């Protein structure tokens, strides 16, 4: 099997794994595991109050925007690095 087919199969498998929860659970709201851990702390240690707050109080929209910014920033650097690496000579050519 050539490598492009393998990559395509890998990506398809990954997409299926990502899509399954949406299909199986429909309109379910997926709570973050960090929030669930906070609930668990509340059960184990009743009345626990966090003793520090995040330095920036940001809205949900702003948080979404910053997460997107992080992904875009990361993807740009990742793309740049992959471009630089694949422009180098291949090992077997040497």
């Amino acid at each position: 099997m050539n490598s492009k087919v393998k990559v395509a199969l890998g990506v398809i498998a990954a997409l299926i794994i990502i899509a399954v929860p949406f299909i199986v659970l429909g309109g379910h709201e997926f709570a973050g595991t960090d929030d669930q851990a906070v609930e668990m702390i509340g059960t184990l240690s009743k009345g626990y109050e966090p003793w520090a707050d995040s330095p920036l109080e940001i809205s949900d929209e702003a948080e979404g925007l910053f997460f997107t910014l992080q992904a875009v920033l990361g993807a740009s650097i990742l793309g740049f690095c992959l471009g630089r690496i694949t422009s180098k000579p291949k090992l077997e050519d040497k």
Partner: protein
Amino acid sequence: MLSKKQKSFVQKLFVLSFAFALSTQTTNAMHIMEGFLPKGWCISWGIIVIPFLVLGYFKLKVQTKENPNALLLFALAAAYVFVVSALKMPSVSGSSSHATGIALGAILLGPAPMSIIGLIVLLFQAILLAHGGLTTLGANIFSMAIVGAFVAYGVYILLKKMKAPGWLAVFLATFLSNMATYATTSLELGLAYPDGASGVFGALAKFMSVFMVSQVPLAIVEGIFTVIIFEGIKKYDVFGKKGLKEVATNEQ
């Protein structure tokens, strides 16, 4: 190679930090959110990660001296962690979480430099995204960028020694690195909040039930993408004179 002076400094730092970390725990025998770890534990984990950060810095310095492309690989590994940890994905368990992205860098550069990447990414998320936290930074670096990195590296080297195919070694290293990260997060929380009836182990089991099941499909997805990137770049001449395996196994 690290110089004798650097080695001895890092060794002393390890001993000191563990001693200090233990001394703060006199009576109490994803990422953890800001303020959700008691102060003593925040200090302990914060101190424990210091020698790992120093070791990571030294190793990175040596690698950049020995291989002109090491910084490029470091940037690639950091960018990968940035992308992967920004993508919250739903899981069939009904909750959502994100993968860590640490394994790729641990395999390419060895585990030590990943502590620096963990510091950069987790600081960014704690300050700008209100995700994780400054007070829980040490605990989160320890679980993701230290345990996650060393597990990835250990599994990869072990499987390579067992002559497993490269893709399988990378996939399992990534998968187990993810699981180990969240098992460590569960342990950190279990130690801090032992269950009234079943103690630390009972609490550990409860926190693992929150994190681990959700993480399985995400760890598989990250494994697939890490294999694709790894297989894509391993044939290029960027690993210095010693080659890929030697870069990762190099005892500097």
